[in-house]
């Protein structure tokens, strides 16, 4: 063989290997073709088009977001990216509307005992999981038992199942759930996507791999999961049990929904623009105005519920052990400016521990502080912090007023501005950029004065792991021990009715602000942008998860 022939052969081999690599992950459905100019026309009068054409079946929607789902076993997952996909695969026992009213889901009706320890659920009949097995009382019990077993339930839902005593099967379509302690939030939590009802047969079949094989009763069924890249759902043709909160009954309109992970903001924007994606979550702030002005797109603002982006202050370490210093830090922080400059219109200013969309959010706590640098200065002066050497930083007893902030990677965007606000009133910040794990470690060890926290959760119970003193080995990074706060949080968790729960959570939110345990910054960012040809996309009651069930493609 001549050399030329040999190198030719090598080239051919290489090409063969490359194309061989291409085959295994070939998508089963054709990807959405970039739509053309027709789009702009169709969106000129959206409402008119809707009534004239009416929803028709068909089409694929590609949804792009920054993160990747990891585990969709409802009993063990805690991931927002997981729950986002789970919303479409699974049904929940109840559905809550945006006025926070409950509607039937897999449970047609429910009764709650006066002490809120016992809940009797009448289940819907004729419902089938995607694997063909029936949904019934045994299936409900199986799911609840997994949530309530601390050895199995290690996900978000398990936190609502503390004190779970058991579930009795009263007949084929009736169950009674019992708790040791009152649990007034129980029915609400059944409307959270983490309370998704999974097929017991599938969980048994897949064992440890159940999280990779989600099988529910929802409007879409998973057909393919390429880890880190995409999840493909197709319409469930048997879906005849749509909750009344939706606009239509029967199977979903879309043939399929593809969830794709695209970590880079710019790329998400580019694929939305060129039509490779129909919906994008997490739009870069600078692009929002442009999208709003273009009739080919529309946006859905979202204020995710839960604890907003906030600086937790370590009450056990000087100088943030002084109430005056903590309060001054809040007054020195201009949240409106933070929200406007750092995140455009994608975030709102926040003035308390919880986002306004959270169940049991307290407006009075939200109204306690507003930006007032003069007040911050006078508070510090009264507490003995004075700038004696003229360097702009205050001192007391020879110590500089400096706070230590071991920061996560994502925090640089707002850190500069925030630190300059604090400096304005004479507080210096030692900012250390660490990787996420190291920053957590520093906060866990109590080395910080300031650490950022933010998480998404439908109700105020998220305050418990963050502020109850018993969770110092977990996430109570304020290291603050106060009997009144602990008591309010415990009472709220075990409240027998909505009012008692709300009142105690309100009290807790006010104590957190009175004690200035946090510097609230902004709400979280999850603005959704969509191409106008995809109609009737909506957010769920939590203002966070998307429903794809009613979505159809405008012709």
């Amino acid at each position, binding site marked *: 063989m001549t050399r030329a022939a040999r190198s030719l052969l090598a080239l051919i081999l290489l090409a063969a290997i490359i194309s061989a690599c291409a085959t295994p992950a070939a998508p089963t459905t054709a990807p959405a073709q970039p739509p053309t100019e027709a789009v702009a026309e169709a969106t000129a009068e959206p409402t008119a088009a809707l009534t004239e054409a009416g929803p028709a079946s068909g089409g694929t929607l*590609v949804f792009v977001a920054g993160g990747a789902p990891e585990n969709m076993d409802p009993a063990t997952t805690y991931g927002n990216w997981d729950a986002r996909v789970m919303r479409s695969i699974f049904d929940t026992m109840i559905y809550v509307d945006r006025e926070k009213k409950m509607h039937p889901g897999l449970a047609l009706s429910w009764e709650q005992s006066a002490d809120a320890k016992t809940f009797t659920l009448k289940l819907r009949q004729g419902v089938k999981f995607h694997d063909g097995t029936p949904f019934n009382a045994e299936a409900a019990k199986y799911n609840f038992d997994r949530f309530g077993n601390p050895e199995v339930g*290690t996900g978000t839902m398990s936190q609502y199942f503390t004190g779970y005593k058991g579930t009795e099967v009263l007949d084929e379509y009736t169950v009674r759930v019992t708790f040791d302690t009152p649990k007034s939030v129980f029915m609400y939590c059944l409307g959270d996507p983490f309370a998704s009802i999974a097929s017991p047969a599938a969980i048994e079949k897949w064992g440890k791999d159940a999280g990779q094989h989600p099988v529910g009763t929802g409007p879409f069924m998973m057909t393919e999961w*390429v880890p880190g890249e995409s999840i493909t759902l197709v319409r469930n043709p048997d879906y005849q049990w749509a909750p009344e909160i939706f606009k239509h009954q029967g199977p979903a309109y879309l043939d399929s929904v593809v969830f794709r992970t695209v970590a880079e903001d710019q790329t998400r924007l580019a694929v939305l623009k060129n039509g490779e994606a129909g919906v994008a979550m997490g739009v870069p702030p600078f692009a929002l105005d442009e999208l709003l002005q273009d009739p080919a797109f529309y946006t859905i603002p979202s204020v995710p519920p839960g604890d907003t982006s906030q600086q937790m202050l370590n009450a056990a370490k000087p100088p943030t052990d002084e109430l005056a210093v903590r309060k001054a830090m809040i007054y020195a922080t201009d949240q409106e400016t933070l929200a406007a400059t750092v995140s455009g219109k994608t975030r709102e200013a926040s003035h308390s521990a919880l986002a306004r969309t959270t169940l049991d959010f307290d407006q009075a706590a939200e109204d306690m502080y507003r930006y007032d640098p003069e007040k911050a200065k006078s508070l510090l002066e009264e507490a003995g912090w004075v700038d004696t050497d003229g360097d702009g930083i205050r001192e007391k007893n020879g110590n500089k007023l400096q706070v230590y902030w071991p920061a996560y990677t994502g925090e640089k965007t707002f850190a500069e501005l925030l630190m300059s606000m604090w400096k304005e009133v004479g507080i210096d910040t030692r900012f250390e950029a660490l990787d*996420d794990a190291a920053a957590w470690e520093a906060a866990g060890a109590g080395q910080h004065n300031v650490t950022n926290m933010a998480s998404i959760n439908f109700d105020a119970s998220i305050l418990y792991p963050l502020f109850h003193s018993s969770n110092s080995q977990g996430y109570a990074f304020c290291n603050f021990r106060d009997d009144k706060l602990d008591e309010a949080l415990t009472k709220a968790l075990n409240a027998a009715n909505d009012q008692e729960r709300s009142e105690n959570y309100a009290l807790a939110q006010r104590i957190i602000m009175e004690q200035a345990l946090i510097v609230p910054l902004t709400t979280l960012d999850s603005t959704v942008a969509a191409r106008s040809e995809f109609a009737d996309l909506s957010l769920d009651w939590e203002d966070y998860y998307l429903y794809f069930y009613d979505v159809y493609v405008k012709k």
Partner: protein
Amino acid sequence: MRAYVMRRILVSFLVIVGVSILTFSMLHLVPGDPVRLMYGQRPVSAETLQVVRHQLGLDLPVPVQYFRYVSHALVGDLGRSIRSNRPVTEEILSRAAPTVQLALSGMLLSTIMGLPVGLLAALKRGTRLDKAIMFTSLLGVSVPRFWLALVLIFAFAVRVHWFPILADTSTRGLVLPALTLALGEAGMVARLLRTSMLQVLGEEYLVTARAKGLSETLVIIRHALRNALIPVVTVMGMEVGYYFGGSVMIETVFGRPGIGRLAVDAVISRNFPVVQGTVLLSSVIFVLVNTLVDLLYATLDPRIRYS
């Protein structure tokens, strides 16, 4: 030759064991509790954290964890991902195809673009063409990949819809990421080959070859290029690490799954089993490729003999 290969395999094995111990101890030396970190997006009680640590065996002493890991690894079980609970081998394999695909097409493209251009520059040394080539290749080497990727996306996927951004595994979807990867490398290959050719072109054996009456094409291709390729092949062999690990940025921008991104995400989230798995795999590949490159020398240059 056989003894040499055997020795290389033995050394490679030791290198891999060393790498595994090093990775393991480094992972446990740097601060960061993977469990508290992963529940950070939705805080839970400390009791739940403890249950999870126990389930994962993270509450055991570090040496015990290492021996557990090694004894399982020896039978091919690399454990399960802390995050997804998927077997690590599966996590890696599912991302191997796109990574290999991108790396090979990047290498192929950079070779196809770089070699002829570098050769041309060497032969036309000092001319305007040479200067133009050198300038362009310098640009290729120095332009940040991230920026290049975004420019390519804007030009070829948003302005005109020639190529998709989100690569499915079709060849069209591979064009933009492969091009991003290859452009810089091609510049490097071209510059390297030019320098190396210029050195070789001054050698006396080329005079001999010409004196034998060989055509200029044969002299250049068979005698000069073959020798000039040796340093280029060495560098390209070492660049394999870059192709596999360094494509993280490209994977991120184009939304491609890949081993590079898997590894980076795993380090950030302290996903110990996945970090160990990816490091193990990349050290195996690295050692393998470098052994192959060493063996390739003998083909390129018959003076090199292994004993």
